[in-house]
């Protein structure tokens, strides 16, 4: 990136429209801006930073008040900063500002030789892909306090660590590692849900046991069946004998008994059928009977709320939230946080709801009504069933009693053979009844076992269905781990190699410009930068040495970023080439070091903008960089009040006297004047 020009209107002390053209000449790559304290050096640096990133430096006071005071007092609240720049042979224009409606905007265009000027859809993304925000703070640099970079810190030197990591483009990679960690957690949860191996094995074992138990009971049932058949045959044989008895009374009794037996079987079947009907009715009505009271209360609630007007809600919650989020009414009028309109609209949320709520309420009401309707037939059906069952049981008991009486009468005959047959019959009947009872119990038990096996099998099927995605998630987890490892390794390698590269770049500068035979060393553990002498001993640094080392570190970072710009195969954010714009850089440096740094910086970066006060400029700085200055400006303070006893304090550039302040002007402001020398 090379900045071509800057234009701004009503930005801080720069009232009206003012402009600067920057030097883009590689041999004269310095744009020099003179300004005494309080005139606007820091404001100018921040105009550039704000235009690109809507951010300002930490030392920039009252950063929320960017509009010029005079303009605001005269009803003009609009202001902007616009920058033209070039990147890889393409020309861009970006402008950030506030219009007269206090609405902020940021627009960007690309000026293409073939297609002309075209707007950029996502200017924030584009500007950050040319110069990421976190890297920019080392290019648009506030020099005051820069010495703190190389002050020895207890523990980690956070500033140096962050600077190296920011220049290497760690931010996106670290964000990605965090995200991958979160996604891994999600995938692991899915795997855990699907990992049913042990549960499946346990269920299979349980099914196996139940099946064994069922086989045993089925076998016993089969025996019951055989035994019943056997006893029936024995009884049938006896009945045949009794039917052929010579006694008319015995015959008659036997015929009655056969009839009653038949009746008993019919009644037993009817009872079974009615019991089945009872189960069916309970299944059909049970849930509705239990839900009746709840359904009634819920219907009352809906009817009451509907009456009050809260269901369905009078306001669409989505629309209200959208208006509040966008801070704009549907008519286009702006709605500011905390304004009366904003508060009134916020209050609507109390009665607002999702528009789908109405449909859901209608569906709920229909369901509740159907519960009530179904209940209506329940009582009569269940009572009828109960009545039928009682009647059938009574009839069955009567039939059994009559059968007992016949059996008793048969044994009262004084015929041995008949008595013997009747006793045998009675015994067979008892055994048969026992077998029937056993059969009934076993049938219930096998039915329970079958249901239990079916339920477990169903659970197995369900678990197997859930387990089908496990391979997919496992595979995705493997891929995630590979990406994560690549990122972590890349960050480690980038950091390690940066130590060597930065050390070399810093020491190349120190070799040229530091009086003593000192080297710089970056501690890989703590990120502290120390000066060491030729015996590898740590040197206690003066303030000047600290500042020199810090400036060298920053300019080396910028060089490192440039070397990474076109690196192939990189996965981290590429490096950048961008102007080094530095405000008040030389602080406590002595004259020689000032001159050396002023000379060194333009040699190591493509475009430099120095914002200097006379204390930084005069003397060795001018001598060392004069030949590389392509453009030169002076910021002049225009003051409404008269000069009075104040001194003018002009500066001298190439022997020419240049104003730094003018009195009796129409407006208090700073103007930018090109220095033609």
């Amino acid at each position, binding site marked *: 990136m090379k900045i071509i020009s800057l234009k701004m209107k009503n930005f801080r002390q720069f009232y009206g429209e003012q402009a600067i053209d920057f030097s883009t000449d590689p041999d004269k790559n310095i744009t020099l801006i003179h300004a005494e304290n309080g005139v606007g050096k820091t404001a100018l640096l921040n105009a550039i930073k704000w235009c690109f990133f809507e951010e300002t430096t930490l030392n920039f006071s009252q950063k929320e008040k960017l509009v010029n005071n005079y303009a605001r007092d005269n009803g003009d609240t609009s202001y902007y900063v616009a920058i033209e720049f070039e990147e890889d042979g393409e020309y861009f224009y970006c402008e950030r500002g506030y219009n007269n409606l206090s609405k902020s905007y940021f627009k960007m265009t690309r000026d293409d030789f073939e297609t002309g000027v075209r707007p950029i859809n*996502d200017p*924030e*993304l584009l*500007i*950050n*892909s040319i110069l*990421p*925000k976190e890297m920019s703070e080392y290019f648009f640099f506030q020099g005051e306090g820069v010495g703190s970079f190389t002050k020895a810190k207890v523990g980690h030197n956070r500033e140096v660590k962050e600077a190296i990591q920011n220049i290497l483009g760690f*931010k*996106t*990679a670290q*964000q*990605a590692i965090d*995200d*991958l960690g*979160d*996604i891994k957690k*999600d995938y692991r949860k899915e795997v855990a849900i699907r990992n049913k191996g042990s549960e499946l094995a346990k269920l299979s074992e349980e099914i196996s046991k139940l099946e064994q138990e069922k086989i045993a009971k089925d076998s016993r049932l089969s025996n019951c069946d055989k035994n019943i058949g056997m006893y029936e045959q024995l009884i049938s044989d006896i009945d045949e004998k009794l039917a052929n008895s010579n006694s008319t009374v015995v015959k008659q009794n036997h015929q009655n008994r056969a009839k009653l037996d038949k009746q008993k079987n019919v009644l037993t079947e009817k009872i079974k059928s009615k019991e089945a009907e009872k189960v069916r009715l309970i299944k059909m009505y049970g849930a509705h009977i239990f839900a009746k009271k709840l359904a009634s209360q819920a219907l009352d609630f809906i009817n009451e709320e509907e009456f009050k007007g809260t269901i369905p809600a009078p306001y669409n919650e989505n629309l209200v939230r959208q208006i509040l989020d966008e801070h704009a009414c549907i008519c286009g009028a702006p709605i500011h946080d905390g304004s009366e309109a904003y508060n009134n609209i916020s209050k609507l949320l109390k009665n607002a709801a999702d528009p789908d709520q109405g449909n859901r309420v209608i569906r709920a009401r229909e369901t509740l009504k159907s519960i009530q309707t179904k209940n209506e037939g329940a009582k009569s059906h269940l009572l009828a069933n109960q009545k039928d069952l009682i009647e059938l049981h009574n009839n069955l008991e009567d039939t059994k009693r009559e059968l007992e009486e016949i059996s008793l009468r048969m044994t009262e005959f004084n015929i041995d053979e008949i008595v013997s047959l009747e006793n045998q019959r009675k015994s067979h009947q008892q055994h048969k009844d026992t077998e029937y009872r056993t059969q009934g119990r076993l049938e219930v038990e096998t039915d329970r076992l079958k249901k239990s096996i079916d339920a477990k099998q169903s659970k197995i099927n369900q678990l197997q269905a859930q387990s089908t995605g496990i391979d*997919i998630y496992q*595979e*995705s987890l*493997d*891929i*995630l781990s*590979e*990406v994560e490892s*690549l*990122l972590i390794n890349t960050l480690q390698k980038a950091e390690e190699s940066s130590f060597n590269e930065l050390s070399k770049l810093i020491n190349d500068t120190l070799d040229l410009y530091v009086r003593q035979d000192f080297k710089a060393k970056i501690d890989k553990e703590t990120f502290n930068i120390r000066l060491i002498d030729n015996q590898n001993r740590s040197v206690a640094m003066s303030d000047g040495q600290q500042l020199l080392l810090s400036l060298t570190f920053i300019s080396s970072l910028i060089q490192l970023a440039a070397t990474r710009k076109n690196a*192939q*195969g990189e*996965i*981290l*954010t590429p490096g950048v080439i961008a102007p080094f714009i530095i405000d008040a850089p030389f602080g406590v440096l002595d004259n020689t070091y000032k001159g050396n740094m002023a000379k060194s910086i333009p040699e190591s970066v493509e475009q430099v903008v120095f914002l200097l006060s006379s204390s930084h400029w005069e003397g060795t700085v001018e001598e060392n960089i004069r030949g590389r200055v392509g453009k030169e400006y002076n910021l002049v303070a225009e003051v409404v009040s008269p000069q009075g006893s104040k001194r003018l304090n002009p500066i001298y550039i190439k022997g020419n006297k240049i104003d730094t302040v003018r009195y009796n002007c129409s407006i208090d402001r700073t103007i930018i004047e090109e220095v033609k020398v």
Partner: protein
Amino acid sequence: MSNNDIKKIFEEASRLAEQQLETPLRQLTRKILNEERKYLYSDQKPAQRKKNIKDFIEEARKSGNFKKNVRA
């Protein structure tokens, strides 16, 4: 062998090395990082970002380039 010949050999070697570096794993990683950039520097929502990353991983998985015998 002239300096030019040596230069050409190195350029060709560098090109081949770059080709080998351009693995499916690196492509996927770059894609994820680009998505992160969109979030950091644009108005992408976090939930959408994670969803998109999951989609990229799913796409990579389906491509078959990450099977154990096709190591990146």
